[in-house]
Structure formats: C-alpha cells, structure tokens
C-alpha cells in the first residue's frame, strides 16, 4: 500500500483524534486548564463502550454510557481541583492514575477485542468510506451542540470563568461549578472519541490514551496556526481543531512512510508541541530584547525634549 492508499485511514484516525482534540480545546482554550485526565478518559470511553457491546447492550446506549463515564472522570478532576484546591494539572494526573486501575477493572484485562464481524459496531477500519461518513457526522453534530451550548447564558458563564475568575465571581457566576461542568463536557467528548476509536480499530487497550493530551494539543495548535486567519467564529475554530487532527495524522503517516523509526514518533510530537507552546514566550523575550537595545536612544530623545 502506497502513501496515497494510507491517506483515507489517516483521515479517519485524524477525525477520531480531532474529536478528542475538541474536548481538549474546551479545557485548554476555554477554561484555561491543561487537563491531563484525557489520557485516562479516552480509554475509559473505549473500555465502557467495548464491554457493554460485548455483553449485548445496544451500541448507541453503550456509547452514551461511555460519554457519561467520561463526563464523570472530568467531574472527578474538577472536584479534586475546586473542592480540594489541588492544582488543575495535578488533579488531572491523579484522576489519570485512578483511571488506569478502573479501566483495567472495567475491561478485566489490558486489552479487549471488539470485532466488527461479531458485534454491531457503527464504524470499522475494514470499511473506511463508511467510517469517514460516520466520523464526519459525529464531528459536525458535536461542533453544532458545542456552538449552541457555549452561546447560551450557561455556556457564556463558563467562557467567562475561563477568561476571568474575579470578574465572573463578581458577576455572580459559580466558578467552581462551571469548572466542573466544563471538565465534564470535555471528558465526555474525549470518551466519545475513545468509544469511536475502539470500534474503528477493533479493540480497547489500556495504553491507548498514553500521550493523548499531546496529540490533542498538537491538533489544537495545528488548527490554530493554519486557520487562525479565517477562524473567528467559534464553530469554525472547533472545525479547525478537527482539521488539525486530520493534518496531524496525515503528517504522521507521511513520516512513517518516509521510514522514520516509529518509536520516535511520540518524542517528535512532544517536541513539536513544546516548540509551538513556547512560541508566545519566545516572542516576548525577543521583543523585550529589542526594546532594551532601543532604550538608550529613547532616553536621549526624552532628555532632548526636556
């Protein structure tokens, strides 16, 4: 299979991870929280969906349960953060570790197969055209719901919470509750992408979420860098995150095709994300250096004026 044969599969995977990245966008961009719960909650979504389907539950109900389970993991992180005062990043790590155990308990072992031939899954990599359609629909529906929700009074107050805590409280907004709600929504979406991924690849695995936050951030950043000029509307911003996921996986495939050691891929992803996260800071550093250089001249002018 050549590189072009691999593209549709990459797009499908990109859409799944793009959906997860939309969840990351909600915490990282809207709530201003780097939430590490996602590394665990994506697997929780996959595990819950897989086990329920295997035990004969309707696929849609299984996916709904996966979303709710994911939302609960987010609420747990939110509770650690707001009720116990644990820094958000640490709260996410704690939940992540809790989920490692819980996910193993849900699945009964480290890996559970979910064969498309045996079970009535709604997408599989064996039929990529169909999978692409299903994933596109899911992405559009999720974006539409989020666009509506964050435009409502309740959604606006969550955006305000992420933007300015002091102002929000002064305007009577329960910031702690909003953080918990935002984290729940985010991880519900992440779990949904986990449920879709398990069906697509035909299994749930305890390690499937490792580094998910980095992929999510990468998709958010790629989407922002490429589409920032046109993406002013919130729905378009979310769409650009989904495209960010797709581009990430296409690049991923190309890099593999070029013969790069796949062991190094996670490291490369992390380094690329580190670089992009560092850009705003580096810009400031360089800007202030220029200022320092031009300062003496300004002073001379000031003196002349005086």
């Amino acid at each position, binding site marked *: 299979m050549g590189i072009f044969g691999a593209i549709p599969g990459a797009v499908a995977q990109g859409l799944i991870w793009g959906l997860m990245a939309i969840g990351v966008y909600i915490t990282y961009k809207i709530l201003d929280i780097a939430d590490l719960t996602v590394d665990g909650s994506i697997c929780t979504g996959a595990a819950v969906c897989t086990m329920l389907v295997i035990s004969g539950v309707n696929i849609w109900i299984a996916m709904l349960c996966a979303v709710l389970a994911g939302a609960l993991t987010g609420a747990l992180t939110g509770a650690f953060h707001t009720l116990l005062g644990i820094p958000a990043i640490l709260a996410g790590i704690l939940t992540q570790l809790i989920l490692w155990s819980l996910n193993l308990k849900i699945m009964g072992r480290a890996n559970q197969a979910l064969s498309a031939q045996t079970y009535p899954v709604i997408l599989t990599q064996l039929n990529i055209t169909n999978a692409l359609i299903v994933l596109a629909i899911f992405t559009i529906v999720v974006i539409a719901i989020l666009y509506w*929700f964050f*435009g409502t*009074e309740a959604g606006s107050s969550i*955006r305000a919470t992420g933007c300015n805590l*002091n102002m929000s*409280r*002064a305007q*009577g907004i329960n910031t702690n509750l909003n953080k918990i709600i935002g984290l729940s929504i985010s991880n519900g979406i992440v779990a949904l992408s986990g449920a879709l991924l398990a069906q697509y690849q035909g299994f749930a695995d305890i390690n499937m979420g490792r580094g998910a936050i980095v992929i999510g951030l990468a998709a958010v950043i790629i989407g922002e860098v490429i589409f920032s000029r046109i993406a002013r509307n919130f729905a378009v911003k979310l769409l650009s995150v989904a495209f960010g996921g797709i581009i990430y996986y296409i690049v991923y495939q190309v890099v593999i095709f070029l013969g790069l050691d796949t062991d190094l891929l996670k490291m490369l992803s992390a380094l690329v994300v580190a670089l992009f996260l560092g850009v705003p800071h580096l810009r400031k550093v360089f800007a202030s250096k220029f200022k320092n250089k031009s300062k003496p001249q300004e002073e001379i002018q000031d003196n002349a004026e005086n």
Partner: protein
Amino acid sequence: MLRIKNVTKTFNPGTINEKIALNRINFHMKPGDFVTIIGGNGAGKSTILNATAGVWPVDSGEIIIDGQNVTGIPEYKRAKYLGRVFQDPMIGTAADMEIEENLALAYRRGKRRTLKWGVSKKEKQFYKEQLKTLELGLEDRMTAKVGLLSGGQRQALTLLMATLNTPKILLLDEHTAALDPKTAAKVLELTDKIIEEKQLTALMVTHNMKDAILHGNRLIMMNNGKIILDIDGEEKKNLTVEYLLEKFVTASGEDFSNDRALLG
C-alpha cells in the same frame, strides 16, 4: 443598607507576616449614602470592600446587606446585591469576550443562567442605549473584544456593568488609581452621574484626599484596621486636605508622607 458588626480579619495568622487588616470594625451605611474611604497603605480600606463582597470569610463579626445576614454566603452568591469596580481595569471585564457579551453577563448577575441564548436581540438595543451614556463611542463597537479597549474605556464599561442591574451597594476599590489624571477625572464624573441617577448606595476607596472630599456625602478615614474618622453632612463639605492630614497624624501618630505624592 450595609451594616458591618464587629468584623475582624487577620491575614496570615500565626506567621511572621501576620497582619490585622480589620480590627473589630463597626460601620453602618444608610440607603443612598455615598461614602468615601481614605487611609494609608495597609489601613484596611480595600479589606472592608473585600469583606463586604465575600472574597474570603471574615474571622468574626457579621455583615448585613439590606437586612440579609450574608456573613456565611460565598462571593458569587453575594454578587446579586453588589456592583463592583476594581483598581485594575483588567479585573472587571472578560478580555476575550465581546462588549455586548460582557454586558449580558453582568445583566444576569443574581439571576439563573439558563440554556437561553446568551445575548438576546432585545437587550442589544438596551445595551446600545446604555453605552451611549458613557459617551465613549462604544455603542458602535458592541461586538469588539473588550481586550481591545483602553484602561479607561474598560473601567467605564465595568462601571456600567456593575450598575446595569441596579445593585444594593456599589463597591469602588480605587477604581481610578490606575488611570491617567484626565481619564480618572472622566470616570469619576461618570461615577457621580450614575450614582446620582440610580440613587445608589456606594462605598468608594480612594488614595486621593481631594476626591474623597469632593465626592459623596460622608467620609471615613482608616488606620491600622480601624475607622479613625467619620464625617458627614455640612462638616464634610467644609473639609480640607490640610485638616485631613493633620487628623491623620494626630490620630495615628504616623506621617502620611508615603502618600503625599498622591494627594493631587
């Protein structure tokens, strides 16, 4: 309207940085009172406002707003009684949100936030008219992000937001201190106008003695967590900066020189 009974607040208790910010304070405001608060750095001026707003719980005493004991009520719930403007223009508004979105957030202070659309068409017209009263041209920039506004514009907007939904008490925490003199004067003028029009009960902390004398109907001076001077009516109208300085020195036994530069 506001009754502060025997309120004490100590910051960093039991440490080397222990600071008694409010020391058994008793204070009462009638409806329609516009009180200015002056005092040196660390006198407890802002602390009184923050105690009223519920930024943190007080150590002892009671805070009663319009007959409601709010001592144990968290900040976000107390917000329904209070309009607040802060010293830092960045604090009062959400920079990443539009002007009309900020107003809509403020308009819903004290109300349930439902799944209805965040800014309705009808209220946009209302916001437009309200923004016009600021005379800053913001009515033509309603969908601009607040982060694009200047400090003075943001402070004027915060003032509008604080009073859009008429508060029981308006708390102004040195809200002109971070502005240039011209803008500060304009925002103060606007403050007077809004308080007058809506007949608000207001509490204004200031570093500027002249402003404290010129504005409001009552003036209190604080030092070391206590109210050391409380003047209203005719007596307040006849106050001079020199008299206040003298009072400060005799009452506190300290020099006001730290703040001399700010007397204006």
